[in-house]
């Protein structure tokens, strides 16, 4: 009796999910081919450190490249830092070390990068490409994470590429909040969570790993590149049974889950439109505007998310949003207290490690 009930319920647990879940069907390629017509299908790029080591070069040629790259980095001094708070040469030199780590198969050989060493090392990119990549990094200010195709975030290494936002260290904290909340409430741990505007999939993946095999996460995004990259990352971490990636605007892909979500997290675009033009070159020139621009005061998406949260969260459900800073946090709490009176409780404004009030968290009130 109990058994048959359970199996009866299972298919209806995700009514929408079954209809629009494209990833499980395309087992062989994790690009979301079934979402779009074949000619516009997106194949995610493979991060440098995962590419096969099919190239090779001598240690002395590698050394030549390294010396060239280092002097290019040194020539930057603090000019980027002064102009738009960009990286100084010491940061660039560390990035250079990491680039080498990702590009050379046997990293222990790097320390023997002598001048006259003809020993060959296997590489994941041709040396000529390394020259190109480093030029792009310095001259075009292409973000380091796009250069190597990945970002280390929490204990994950996430694939990223142009068209998807590089996850920020600040955002790691949201996973800690979720971890705290579910450690106190087992019911939330077993519920359905949503990460809206998932980008590379960072939050969705981080949360899935906290929830474990009992959890369910739906991660959405409007951007097709984000969908492809997030699906690739989900696949890489073997989380296909826990996270589902859905394409669409904010709550649209969650129809049918009203009042059912155990938790909702989002780091939506929150930069005021007027600030976009003055952004640090790595961000303004290279990252997608749709991931950054939050409208006139930067709160368009955040307010929309608050409205939706009142509708989608179940009683006792948890939410966490990242914001542009103190002003946003205050305004958001005000908005929820005044316009959604009674639907939310236990608000908290939490600073990031730089001391900037960055996050708003709270719970859906028991009574709606």
């Amino acid at each position, binding site marked *: 009796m109990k058994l048959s009930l359970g199996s009866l319920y299972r298919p209806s647990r995700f009514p929408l999910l079954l209809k629009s879940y494209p990833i499980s069907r395309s087992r062989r390629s994790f690009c979301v081919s079934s979402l779009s017509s074949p000619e516009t299908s997106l194949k995610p790029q493979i991060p440098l450190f995962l590419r096969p080591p099919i190239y090779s070069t001598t240690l002395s040629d590698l050394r030549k490249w390294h010396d060239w790259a280092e002097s290019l980095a040194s020539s930057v001094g603090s000019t980027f830092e002064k102009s738009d708070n960009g990286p100084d040469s010491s940061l660039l030199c560390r990035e250079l070390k990491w680039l080498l780590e990702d590009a050379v198969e046997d990293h222990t050989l790097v320390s023997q990068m002598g001048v006259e060493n003809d020993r060959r090392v296997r590489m994941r990119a041709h040396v000529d490409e390394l020259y190109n990549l480093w030029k792009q990094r310095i001259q075009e200010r292409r973000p380091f994470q796009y250069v190597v195709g990945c970002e280390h975030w929490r204990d994950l290494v996430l694939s990223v590429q142009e068209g998807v936002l590089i996850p920020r260290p*600040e955002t790691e904290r949201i996973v800690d909040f979720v971890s705290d909340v579910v450690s106190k409430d087992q019911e939330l741990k077993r519920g359905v969570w949503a990460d809206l505007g998932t980008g590379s999939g960072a939050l969705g993946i981080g949360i899935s790993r906290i929830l474990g095999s009992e959890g369910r996460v739906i991660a959405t995004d409007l951007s097709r590149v984000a969908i492809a990259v997030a699906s690739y990352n989900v696949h890489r971490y073997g989380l296909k049974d826990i996270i589902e990636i859905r394409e669409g605007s904010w709550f649209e892909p969650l129809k049918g889950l009203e009042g059912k979500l155990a938790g909702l997290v989002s780091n939506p675009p929150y930069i005021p439109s007027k600030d976009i033009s003055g952004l640090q070159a790595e961000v303004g020139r290279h990252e997608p505007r749709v991931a950054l621009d939050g409208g006139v005061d930067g709160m368009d998406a955040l307010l929309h998310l608050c409205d939706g949260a009142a509708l989608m969260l179940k009683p006792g459900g948890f939410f966490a949003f990242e914001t542009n800073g103190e002003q946003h946090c205050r305004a958001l709490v005000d908005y929820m207290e005044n316009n959604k009176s009674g639907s939310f409780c236990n608000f908290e404004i939490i600073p990031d490690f730089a001391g900037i009030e960055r996050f708003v968290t709270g719970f859906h009130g028991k009574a709606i």
Partner: protein
Amino acid sequence: MGCSQEGEVEAKKEEKIKLGREKASIASYCAAAVSEEHDSLAPSFARVPLGMVFATQIRFWGSQAAPEQSTSDGLTVDGILASNWTILDENEGDWKSHATAVAQSIHLIKRRLQWRKLIVRLNMLSAELNKPDLWDDPVHAGKISREHGSLQGKMKEVNALEQELLEHIDMIKLAREENDEDLESESVKALLNMRRNSKEKELEALLAGEQDLYSCYIEVQAGAGGTESMDWAAMVMQMYKSWAQRRGYKVTVVEEMPGEIAGIKRATIKVDGDYAFGYAKAEVGVHRLVRISPFDSNKRRHTSFAAVAVTPILGDASAHVQINESDLRIERFRSGGPGGQHANTTESAVRIVHIPTGITATCQNERSQHQNKASAMAVLQSRLDQLEMARQAHLNAQHTQSLTDITWGSQIRSYVLHPYRMVKDLRTNYEVSDPDSVLEGDLDGFILSYLSACLDKDEDGA
């Protein structure tokens, strides 16, 4: 005739061997009984009536030190030493010289283990273990029984060495009496093996401290004097990296604060591997450099200083100090600007401040903030553990100082590159005339001479 004589010899030899075996088995029976009782102490205590346990234990814990062992003709280890036989080269194949070398090693090992103190301590621990209410405090009881087990193990090992040495001598003497060349050469070979292995054992005895086995952090901080001393600090750090790599340890840079022009203001590395702390603790203190500074356009001679601290990374989780989340303040190391979506940076270093003690830890080597935080927490944990150890055991000379405790006066070693070339340890007077090799990590001579000096000066230990 030959027959009867041979029979006699056989019988004699058998008797000897039997005698030796008996002696051996009595000794090992005692040891086994003690250790068995020790191992089963905790569980059995609950089951057996108190009085009974008390009685049985007295019997076993009573006989700690084995009676002095000797060969069948009464030769003891001390006797061998007193004979003053000359020690020849290993290849000479002279048994007396092998025996003397081994006896000397045993003597040295005993001294290093502080033999007499060890026996007194062992008796004390035994008495403690015999107390019927011992297990009312399981944490304390666990500690006592662990220490007892470890000291007991050391004692057994030395006793076994002595016994083995004397048995080989017995055999050689016997073989000579009987003109049994095979037996003789076999026994001499066995002695030679002992002689070779005992060097290793001497070294192990140097590293018998409670925390010696663990991995450690090494921190180096530049003294006053600007770029020249920051460059010196970087050289010292490089020296430890190379030393650790030579020894086969895994080295990770945890934190590095570069100087403006050259070198480092401070840095921390993690050295992973057995006995890393045991060796590296010998390096704690201030290291002094004298040279013509490459940063001085007038080519003057400069003296600079770098301070070194070494912290063990305790393997036993139960030994850790409990840290309350609410006592921590976590800060981004280099921040500024609005952050969040506005910024792209690969700098995700964090600094953790333990508010009650003011102790801080930074990590900037990892590629994510989360990992930097985890590494910094591990450093903080070790520093707090060390503080606690120092607090608990300020009488215990084994603990090392933290960087803040090290006064710039406590110089331990001097590296002179000009006007002459020499590295000299001010504690042991050990010196080397080739500074380059030392700076390339050839430090074992300094470390071992210091460790032995520390222990061997305690003459009455044995």
